C-alpha cells in the first residue's frame, strides 16, 4: 500500500512535467496542425537556462524559473518567425521536416556551446531540500513544488485561453482560420502567441526537471518530448485538457511500470500505448470525430 502511494506521488511529479510539455505540442498542433518537434528542445534549453541562472549567477529557484520561461518564450517566438512563418502556405510535410531540422539544430547547436557531457543542477539547500515522511512514504519539497507550479500554470493557461481576447482568438483560429480572419483576428500574431505560451510552459518544465532529476544534457529533450507527444495524442491532440490528462496518465504509467520491476520496459509500454490509441481511438480520449451539419 505504501509502495502504491509512493508511486502515485512519483507519478504525479513526472506526469506534471509531461503535461507541461504536452500542452505546447497540443496548442501548436491545434492552431497550425504542426507537430513541432523542436518543442522538446525548447524544454532542454529551458533546463540549461535554469542551470546557468542557479549555478553561475547564484539566483534562487523562482527567479531562475521565471528567467527560463521568458528566454524560452523569446526562443519560441524566434523559431516560429524564422522557421515556420515563411512556410505558412507550404505543404504540411515541408513544415514537419523543417521542425525536425530546427530540433536537430537546437540539439547540436547547444552541444557545441555546452559540450555533450551531462551537468548536474546545483544541490538544493534549505527549504528546497526538505523531505516529508509519512510512514515509509516520502514526499520531497521538489515534488510539492512541481505539482504546485504546474497547477498554477495550468490555471493561468485556462484563464488566458477562456477569458482573454487573445485566448479567444487562439481558439477561433484553431477551429476555422478563414472565419477567424473574417472576424478581423490577426492570424499571424495569434500563431506567434501560441508558440510563446507553449514555449514558456516548456521552459518551466525544463527547470523543474533539472531540480527534480538533477542531471541535464543537450539530448535530454528527445525522450520526454516523444512521451509528452504520446500524452498529447492520448488526450486528443489539439485539446488542452486532453494534454493535461494525457501527461498525468503517461507519467503514472511510466512510474508504475518501473516501480513494479519493469523499468527496462517502461519506454516500450509508453509507445505501446501510442500504438494502441492509434488503433482503437485515433482522435484520443477527449477527441471527437468532426461532425458536419447541413
Amino acid at each position, binding site marked *: 500500500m505504501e509502495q502504491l502511494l509512493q508511486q502515485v506521488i512519483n507519478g504525479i511529479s513526472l506526469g506534471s512535467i509531461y503535461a507541461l510539455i504536452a500542452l505546447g505540442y497540443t496548442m501548436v498542433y491545434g492552431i497550425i496542425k504542426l507537430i513541432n518537434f523542436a518543442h522538446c528542445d525548447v524544454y532542454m534549453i529551458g533546463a540549461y537556462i535554469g542551470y546557468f541562472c542557479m549555478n553561475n549567477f547564484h539566483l534562487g529557484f523562482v527567479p531562475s524559473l521565471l528567467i527560463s520561461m521568458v528566454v524560452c518564450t523569446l526562443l519560441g517566438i524566434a523559431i516560429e518567425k524564422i522557421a515556420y512563418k515563411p512556410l505558412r502556405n507550404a505543404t504540411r510535410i515541408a513544415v514537419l521536416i523543417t521542425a525536425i531540422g530546427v530540433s536537430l539544430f537546437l540539439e547540436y547547436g547547444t552541444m557545441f556551446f555546452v559540450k555533450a557531457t551531462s551537468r548536474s543542477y546545483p544541490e538544493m539547500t534549505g527549504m528546497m531540500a526538505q523531505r516529508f515522511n509519512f510512514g515509509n512514504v516520502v514526499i520531497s519539497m521538489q515534488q510539492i513544488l512541481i505539482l504546485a507550479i504546474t497547477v498554477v500554470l495550468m490555471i493561468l493557461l485556462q484563464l488566458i485561453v477562456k477569458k482573454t481576447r487573445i485566448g*479567444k482568438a487562439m*481558439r477561433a483560429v484553431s*477551429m476555422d482560420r478563414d*472565419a477567424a*480572419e*473574417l472576424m478581423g*483576428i490577426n492570424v499571424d500574431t495569434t500563431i506567434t502567441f501560441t508558440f510563446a505560451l507553449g514555449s514558456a510552459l516548456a521552459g518551466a518544465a525544463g527547470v523543474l526537471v533539472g531540480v527534480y532529476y538533477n542531471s541535464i544534457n543537450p539530448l535530454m529533450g528527445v525522450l520526454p518530448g516523444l512521451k509528452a507527444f504520446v500524452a498529447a495524442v492520448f488526450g486528443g491532440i489539439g485539446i488542452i485538457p486532453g494534454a493535461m490528462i494525457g501527461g498525468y496518465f503517461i507519467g503514472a504509467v511510466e512510474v508504475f511500470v518501473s516501480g513494479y520491476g519493469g523499468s527496462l520496459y517502461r519506454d516500450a509500454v509508453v509507445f505501446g500505448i501510442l500504438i494502441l490509441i492509434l488503433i482503437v481511438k485515433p482522435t484520443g480520449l477527449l477527441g471527437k470525430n468532426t461532425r458536419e*451539419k447541413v
Partner: protein
Amino acid sequence: MLEIKNIDVHYGVIHVLKGISFTVNDGEIVTLIGANGAGKTTTLRTISGLKKPTSGTILLDGEDITQVSPRERVKRGISHAPEGRRIFPDMTVLENLELGAYLRKDKEEIAKDLKKVYERFPILYDRKKQLAGTLSGGEQQMLAIGRALMSRPRILFLDEPSMGLAPFLVQEIFNIIKDINTTGTTILLVEQNASMALQIAHRAYVLETGSIVLSGTGAELMQSDEIKKAYLGG
C-alpha cells in the same frame, strides 16, 4: 460604395474570375447569381481579402483596398458571412457573437448591438450558452448572420444564406435580409436560389464561368427569357 474593377483571380493555373467589374451603391441589395462554380464565392472571398486577385482593383468609398489585410477591411466596414456558415462550433453562441465584434472597443455599443441581434433572432438568445455546433442548420445560419452584424458593418456579404434550409426558413431568412437592408446596411448577396434573390435585390449580376454575362435590376432580370430558362426553371 464598393467598386470592383477588372478583377482576375487564379487558383493555380485555373482562371476563376476573368476580369469582372461591378459596383454596389450605398443602401442597395445587389445579388450575384449563377451556377455552381461560376465564381460567386471566389468573388466575395476576394473582396473580403481571403483571396488575393492576380490583377484588378477593389475600391471601397473610392479608396483602393486591393492590398489591404482582411482585418483592415473589417475595420473599414466590410463584414462577410461565408459560405457554409463557418461558425465556431466549439464555442457558445454568445462567444461566437462576441467574436463578431472582435475589433470593436465600444463596450456599450457592442452590448446594444448584441441586444439587437437577440431581438432579430430570439432563438439565439434562448441558446446563448449552448455550443454553436449543436445548433440546427437554420439556427447556425442565423448565428452566422448575427455574428457578421456584430461588427456593425456598412456593407454585408452573404454567401448562400438559404443553402440547405427548409423552404419556410428560406422565406424567413430572405425577410430578415430585406429588413437588415432597410435599417441601413448595404448588402451583397450571393445565391443559387435565383428567384428569391431577384425578388429582394435592387440590382443583380449574372456570373457564368468567371465572367459577368448579364446585369440589370432584379425585376428586369426576372423577366428576361435567358434568366428564366437558365436559372428560374422555366
